[in-house]
């Protein structure tokens, strides 16, 4: 447990239209760890993730990356932060006019300043990693949802992020396409990628997460190891939320709380 802290989120407050969307949220992520955000829709998970890379700047509080607090007023610091923080969106947000290869390559050229050949090589590497080397010439309109999300993972990874933020990466997918994306996420966790993921895939993430953060009305109301929170007699909010979800899905996956990642 001596891994260094990569990302520290302290006392984040965010108000939108007079409503407190995030209310004093704090947590930190160590190198190679995966934190999972759970909670009902509208709890503030997406907003919290967007605050971390200042897509939606927090009203107050501090975001520190690698021990250095980010000055949200400095445009240069913001751009530097965003380069180092990858983001995966629920609805992929691929650039529709670019092929899979160019989706991955564009920021390598424009932001990282790589020359075209180096960018192409790197982009192909990342596409191969998510199993899409043979789809590099296809456009988003020609890809399935699962493939699109895997391209978006490749696009984020190509930037060598220190942290990857994932906002419900499988929620927009047809059930039969969820598995291929979860496999990619599992591989990343195994390779030691530092991640913060909002998801409803509780039983899947229980086997990978170091900690669950249960959010409700803009606050983290419960946190702990998955095995502890999901224990049948824990009486936790997480447990009852998970039970409700699995009842709706009819798969009864909630009782299983696999051993946490070594």
């Amino acid at each position, binding site marked *: 447990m001596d891994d260094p802290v990569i990302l520290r989120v302290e006392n984040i407050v965010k108000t939108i239209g007079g409503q407190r969307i995030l209310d004093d949220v704090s947590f930190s992520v160590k190198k190679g760890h995966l934190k999972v955000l759970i909670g009902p829709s509208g709890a503030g998970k997406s907003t919290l993730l967007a605050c971390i*890379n200042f897509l939606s700047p927090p009203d107050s509080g501090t975001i520190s990356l690698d021990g250095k607090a980010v000055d949200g007023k400095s445009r240069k610091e913001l751009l530097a932060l965003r380069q180092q923080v990858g983001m995966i969106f629920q609805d992929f947000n691929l650039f529709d*006019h670019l092929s899979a290869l160019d989706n991955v390559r564009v*920021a390598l050229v424009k*932001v990282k300043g790589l020359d075209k050949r180096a960018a192409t090589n790197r982009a192909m590497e990342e596409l191969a990693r998510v199993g899409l080397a043979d789809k590099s010439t296809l456009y*988003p309109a020609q890809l399935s949802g699962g493939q699109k999300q895997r391209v978006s993972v490749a696009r984020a990874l190509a930037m060598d992020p220190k942290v990857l933020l994932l906002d419900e990466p499988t929620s927009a997918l047809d059930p039969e396409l969820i598995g291929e994306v979860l496999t990619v996420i599992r591989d990343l966790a195994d390779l030691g990628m530092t991640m913060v993921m909002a998801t409803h895939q509780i039983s899947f993430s229980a086997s990978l997460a170091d900690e669950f953060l249960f959010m409700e009305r803009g606050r983290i109301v419960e946190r702990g190891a998955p095995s502890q929170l999901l224990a049948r007699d824990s009486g936790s909010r997480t447990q009852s939320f998970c039970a409700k979800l699995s009842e709706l899905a009819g798969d009864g996956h909630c009782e299983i709380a696999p051993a946490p990642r070594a």
Partner: protein
Amino acid sequence: MDDFFAFAWERIIPTLDAGLWTSILLIVPASLFGVAIGVSVGALRVYGPRPVVKTLDAYVSLFRGTPLVVQLYFWYFALPYVRIGDFALVLSPMWAAIVGFALCSGAYQSEYIRGGLLSIKRGQLRAAQALGMTPFQSVTSVVLPQAFRRALPGCGNEIIYLIKYSSLASIITVSDLTGMGRSLAKSSFRNTEVFIVVGLYYLALVTIASFLLKIAEKKLEIPGFESKRE
């Protein structure tokens, strides 16, 4: 029939060629200004501050809501009487026509540009920013290439319309294709032959323009951006 060809060859074509040049000098700047106005106005109507948006919406309603002939009459016949202090602007027939066509065409063009810009999902801008792109980079490498593709068929159609409604310049005394044709028809009393050939000239212009636009669209075509031209 031989008579028709002889007349066409000796009288109509030389006369119309002079008018053709005038028409081209009218259509090219008017459509360029029209596109420039359309792009600026369209972008401001999407991204501009509220008062600007309201003002430009009013401009578009005004120019789309009044007949082009009336607009041309205004620029040519009425504008000289609009005095601001001691100053009144008098436009030559040619400039009155260019201004009239450009402003009217720009109003329509801005609709297509606006639609193109609005069709790009906000999420793509967020993704670009999340990768560390500057706002300028996001707009130039993500928004514009897509908005341009979405707007191109509409903007192209508008240019084709402009070629045809350029014939209205003749009513404010411009000696364009139609103007020259009308004089010749009057002096020779051969309306049928003259106006058939005038029509063919416009048909040729429109055909060439359509062909160029089709090439541009083909060059820019991408899956998911197939153009649906009516």
